[in-house]
């Protein structure tokens, strides 16, 4: 990781963004353990670098479509964390009024168009946004974010083909954490690097260390530039580590001793302190502030009222 070409303010912003995501998910895990969040909770601790890196390389009016583990991308784009936490808790003040929940967050006003709970289901949606942006001459780019588990789905391949064929301003952002739900990637495919698929379809590709937020940012910035210039889609594979289990309550695939060395937030923080870009006290303060913000958000979310029964029938169709 080279930090020399990046301003201290930018480095600080990355750390703030990553800590905010981490604090949000730590709090969500805690609330979930107390039984205050319904259903399954899929956390992405360890993937913060991809979200922060991607968001910093994209414009506010660009589109991001997340998967079932997409809290990080919503936060990195700037979604309101109080509304997000309220949505996780099923409250009326939630981002989706309690109709979506953790896997279906939607904040189109900050370019986080939607998340989907169906693995690979977001990829063609992102193609569509790329198509409409191009047709309207808006020079926006569209990104689908997915895990390595999506690579074996048919629609992943259909989408790569269409994106390449129609030269869409599209980013395939793969968070390759080596595990599809509960299984190591090797149980599902002999292909270790998902970016290999992109080669077949003639889509420019790169594999980067997802624990290096600046490398992620650079790779995505290059892909964005290509897309805006009308040169079509790119595939950015980020090698990452998901530090929690597939869902909360399930043990992590990693040993406790491994986790610290694979933790992107700690790695980044250590590097900044070692390089002298930030003081240890400042880093501590950034983390503390993030936790304080999240604490307030969680309190407001859990104090908010439940949705009323008559809201069940609204928004089935647009009227």
């Amino acid at each position, binding site marked *: 990781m080279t930090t020399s070409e990046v301003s201290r303010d930018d480095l600080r912003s990355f750390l703030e963004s990553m800590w905010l995501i981490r604090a949000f998910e730590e709090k969500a895990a805690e609330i979930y353990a107390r039984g205050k969040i319904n259903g399954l909770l899929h956390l992405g601790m360890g993937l913060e670098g991809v979200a922060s890196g991607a968001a910093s390389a994209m414009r506010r009016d660009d589109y991001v479509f997340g998967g079932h583990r997409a809290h990080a991308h919503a936060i990195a784009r700037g979604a309101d964390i109080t509304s997000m936490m309220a949505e996780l808790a099923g409250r009326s003040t939630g*981002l989706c009024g309690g*109709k979506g929940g953790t896997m279906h967050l939607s904040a*189109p006003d900050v370019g986080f168009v939607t998340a989907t709970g169906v693995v690979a289901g977001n990829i063609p*949606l992102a193609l*569509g946004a790329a198509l409409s942006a191009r047709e309207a001459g808006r020079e926006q780019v569209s990104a689908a974010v997915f895990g390595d588990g999506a690579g074996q789905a048919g*629609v992943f391949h259909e989408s790569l083909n269409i994106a390449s064929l129609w030269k869409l301003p599209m980013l395939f952002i793969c968070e390759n954490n080596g595990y599809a739900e509960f299984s190591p990637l090797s149980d599902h495919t002999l292909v270790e690097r998902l970016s290999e698929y992109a080669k077949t379809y003639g889509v420019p590709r790169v594999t980067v260390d997802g624990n290096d937020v600046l490398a992620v940012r650079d790779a995505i910035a290059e892909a964005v530039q290509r897309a805006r210039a009308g040169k079509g889609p790119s595939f950015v594979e980020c090698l990452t580590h998901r530090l929690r289990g597939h869902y909360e309550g399930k043990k992590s695939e990693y040993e406790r001793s491994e986790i610290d060395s694979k933790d992107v937030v700690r790695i980044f923080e250590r590097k900044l302190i070692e390089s002298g870009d930030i003081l240890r006290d400042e880093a501590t303060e950034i983390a503390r502030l993030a936790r304080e913000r999240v604490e307030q958000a969680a309190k407001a979310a859990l104090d908010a009222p439940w949705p009323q029964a008559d809201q069940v029938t609204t928004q*089935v169709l*647009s009227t």
Partner: protein
Amino acid sequence: MRTLTYGQAMVEGLRELLESDDRIHIMGQYFLGLTPQRALVGELAAEHPDRFYYPPIAELGYLGTAIGAAMTGMRPIVDLATASFMFQAWAQITEEMANIHYMSDGQTKVPMVFHFNHGIRGGGAAQHSHSPQAMLWNTPGMEIMLPSTPYDVKGLLKTAASTDNPTAWGDHVKLFMMEGEVPEEDYAIPFGVADIKREGSDVTIVATSLMVQRSLAAAGKLASEGISVEIVDPRTIVPLDEAAILESVAKTGRLVVVDECHRSCGVGAEFSAIVAEKAFGYLKSPIRRVVTEDVPIPFSPPMEEYVEPTEAKIIQAVKEVID
């Protein structure tokens, strides 16, 4: 008034939409299947080359692309050709298209139309003869139109393309050559408004799509025997004009449902249930369903006829509810 074929009315509707709204784009080109009139779609595409996309045979991918485009400002009209191919796109239709507006609490609209040619068209066998409208109806979050005349297809299409909801648009291949009056002036048919295709007093038939035409033919023959049949065509099943169905049953006291879906959980089953629940007191005899049998559609012509709702079966059912 001038007369157009169903195919001509449909393509005229598409042409007017392309000319009036530049957000409308068309994906796919088999709106008229492989029937003789398919060249009409080709002509339209030649007039608007920059508004047509020809996707690879990857329904899941391109239907999903249309959804994403609709979510972000386009108003795509997507053709899935034969209804049976819809199942390739099923995950995007049921998981994404129908849910996004609801899941986002109305933040994101999905203004798109997807077209399919449904039903038994002769020799389609089990994999080219589906009528999946009941399966779609079981998926809240979309509107469903099933036109039965040239006038209706054009007028309903205009409404479908102007709403902010996803619309499923099912045509029957056997309607394409049918002729009917279509005004020169612009018009749109609102959704949720049934059309009484024939007035009568003895028996109500509720039918959609091709089954309206088949019921009209049966009603003509029954009239010569002194039996007066009223035919209610809901035109859209979501939203459904329940009142029109219930009013007709209140008048006649008898109901025959004619529907090309399979018997179990079909569109006809739902019409029957609504009447049984809300107009039971008016019924003078049990409801009869003339529907496709619960078997895959067979290939051989006599086998095909055995499983589908035919004019003879409609006539027999009407006579049974009167006896």
